[in-house]
């Protein structure tokens, strides 16, 4: 079940935990056997620590969705490199650090700081966070995304996975652009811009009006996006969005993703990713026997 995504990032199996839904792994390690998973994608990490947005930060939507506006609360890259990475180095699960920023210099700083740091298996460039000012400009513009990836490529020999925003008219164009400027793989998708109205007050529930929508409500949308990306690039594609079980994960593999990430469903049951892995392993076994 090993998945080699190239440039030094090989996952023991195709099921990982999505950024922002597993923290830096410490809480989940108490709840599940994290080391059986294919990868852990950390919370979006920035140059300086961020305290995050004012509450409420999460709201459930009807039809199996979760809206969030966390605002990239994280301890900053220095803390991650010095305090967390040494602990990651003791784990069997590969830890890919999700990096976010407001400008090119921020991203370059973070990636450079993590270069050569033991315990960091790769970089996931989050060019698509909808919850901070300028957080999505890179992901919305193929040219800007390409320049960012080029700048990051110049400072790292590590695997660089680029996390794509679905809030664009042509996700395939952005995927092609980042491939051409040196991305080793892409993950798709981040959350969809969504809104919830508080019915009694008639106002949006989240302080900024909108937030990022995730969960089973977005799985068909994410699947279509991943299929479009798959058709546009030759580098590996990691599918993410609305996975709740092996069947919904396998859909992404069927449209050509090499691996998947489980996000919101971990909140519902921390064992979800392990169940997905078990189910996919069983499905593969069945296909091998019958095929």
């Amino acid at each position, binding site marked *: 079940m090993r998945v080699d995504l190239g440039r030094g990032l090989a996952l023991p199996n195709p099921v990982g935990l999505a950024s922002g839904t597993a923290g830096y792994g410490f809480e*989940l390690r108490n*709840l599940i056997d994290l080391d059986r998973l294919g990868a852990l994608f950390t919370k979006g990490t920035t140059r300086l620590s961020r305290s*995050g*947005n004012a509450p409420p930060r*999460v709201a*459930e939507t009807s039809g199996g969705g979760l809206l969030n506006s*966390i605002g990239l609360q994280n301890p900053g890259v220095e803390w991650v490199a010095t305090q967390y990475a040494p602990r990651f180095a003791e784990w069997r699960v590969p830890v890919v650090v999700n990096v976010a920023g407001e400008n090119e210099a921020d991203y370059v700083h973070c990636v450079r700081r993590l270069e050569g740091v033991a315990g960091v298996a790769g970089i996931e460039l989050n060019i698509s966070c909808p919850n901070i000012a300028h957080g999505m400009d890179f992901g919305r513009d193929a040219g800007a995304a390409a320049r960012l990836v080029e700048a990051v490529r110049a400072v790292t020999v590590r695997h660089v996975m680029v996390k794509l925003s679905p809030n664009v008219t042509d996700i395939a164009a952005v995927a092609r652009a980042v491939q051409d400027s040196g991305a080793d793989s892409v993950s798709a998708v981040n959350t969809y811009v969504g809104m919830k109205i508080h019915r009694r007050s008639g106002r949006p529930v989240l302080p900024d009006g909108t937030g990022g929508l995730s*969960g089973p409500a977005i799985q068909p949308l994410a699947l279509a996006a991943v299929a479009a990306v798959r058709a546009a690039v030759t580098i590996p594609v990691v599918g993410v969005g609305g996975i709740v079980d092996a069947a919904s994960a396998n859909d992404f593999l069927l449209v050509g993703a090499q691996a998947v990430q489980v996000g919101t469903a971990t909140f*519902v049951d921390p064992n979800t990713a392990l169940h997905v892995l078990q189910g996919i392993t069983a499905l593969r076994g069945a296909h091998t026997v019958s095929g």
Partner: protein
Amino acid sequence: MSATLDARVEHGPIVSVERFGHLVELTARLPALASAVRPGQFAQLRCSATTVPLLRRPFSVAWTDGDLCTFVLDEVGVGTRLLAAMQPDAELDALGPLGAGFTVVHEAGHAVCVSGGVGCAPFPLLVRELRRAGVADITVLNGAASAAKLYPPERFQRGDTAVHVAEATDDGSRGRHGRVTDLLDLAPAPAAVYACGPNAMLASLAAALDSIGLTRDTVAEASLEAPMGCGFGTCLGCALPVRRADDEAAWALCCTDGPVMRMRDVDWHELSLLPGADVA
């Protein structure tokens, strides 16, 4: 981080669903939770086997009896309605125990529990543990909007004559006509104050206690609420405004730093500006 140490997903059959006015007591066989939970900790309960509603809902563990755990619910939304409609023998899916519980004082003279509405939930267990720790007498100040939303006094006392209950309702349908904080004069000079209820009630309690200087050297703790994504510290969704030791404003996580917090650490003014947990 340590708050999730004992937590696990556990499935067990519901053994009873009892109604007390608007409040519902749900009891299920959950041995691991029953043996590990401390007063004030909570469990995240799945409301449906499908993905609608999606998220678990947090509930204080109200009581344990051998292998059994009891939760108290108020049917305020779709999740609580589904839980309240569950039948004996149906399987309950619980994740817990989660969060930081109350500090159980030992051999103190007099402890006060201030409960607002379904904020009664953590107190039966807390009262039992306080009595086991040698607290001589306990007063529960119990307030709610109306008589139908008041948790019955016997549910706090469980036959223990050292536990006194005073009641207040907003509409005067039972007990004193007014707020639960109006009952504070019935509990002078307590060794410890514990509170649970809507954030607005907790804020006015904090102000009342502050004005008599109580929060500085007395155990004064409140169980707070916030919309939760996970309940175990990974989503960062449950931020609550606090004041750090250096008086800097900061966010704490309701699910792991709380739900029980020292009242002096909470930024009550900031909290009062936020919409309640019910918005989500």
